[in-house]
């Protein structure tokens, strides 16, 4: 019985000692971390380009620009459609007609 109690005491002391040692190790790590010098930012590694000094760029597709005359006609068409929609609303005012969709490419 005495031997059993003694073994139990040693086991408890051992567990306590290991817990203290673990706690101390964790504390010292967290104290040290703010003092650590900041690591320099590592630039993203560019993909290797063999036999070429040119920068690899994604091809830029220029937006298709319609001639100004076409754009003006599109605006005119849009205004006419909007006026027609507004006229419909004024003839029979309703929520649905107020926000009715037209076929104008500016709103579709």
């Amino acid at each position, binding site marked *: 019985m005495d031997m059993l109690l003694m073994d139990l005491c040693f086991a408890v002391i051992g567990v306590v000692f290991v817990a203290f040692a673990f706690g101390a190790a964790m504390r010292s790590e967290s104290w040290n971390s703010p003092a650590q010098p900041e690591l320099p930012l590592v630039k993203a590694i560019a993909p290797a380009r063999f036999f070429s000094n040119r920068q690899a760029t994604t091809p830029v597709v220029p937006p298709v*620009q319609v001639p*100004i005359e076409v*754009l*003006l006609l599109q*605006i*005119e068409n849009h*205004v*006419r459609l*909007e*006026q027609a*929609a*507004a*006229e419909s*609303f*004024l003839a029979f005012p309703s929520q649905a007609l*107020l*926000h009715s969709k037209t076929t104008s490419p500016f*709103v579709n």
Partner: protein
Amino acid sequence: MTHELLNGLSPVEIEQVLKLGTRLIVPSGVSLFRLGDPADRLFLTERGRIKLTLPMQLRCREEDVFVEERSPGQTVGWSALIPPYRFTLAATATLFEAEVIALPREALLQYFAANPAAGYKIASNLAVVIGHRLQLFQTMWLREMQRTVEVRSA
């Protein structure tokens, strides 16, 4: 030709009003008035169409953008009777030449003073024209606003 501005007037009154004006031929593409011009004459469209435009910046260029078109019988340039008497749009004849009757403001006001009943009818007709424009553009503004809000909150 019936003119919206002269609705309800007797034939004699219509003749009296039309006599105050001058007939003008506006060749295709020619300006009737420009934005900001002094508005001293009101126009009744007799023939052809008058396009009303406003300047807008398009690709770093100023372009006249379509706002409205007026047909025979309709009134153009009611700014001539509304202070500060400046045109708030530009007016141009469309693809075909147009014919208008230009009514000077001073002559009209004198006629109204001498013929209050006819003046009242013309003023009422003018209110209908202005009111319709207001309601139309109020509706168009709200539709555009609704789309702007939808795009921004998407």
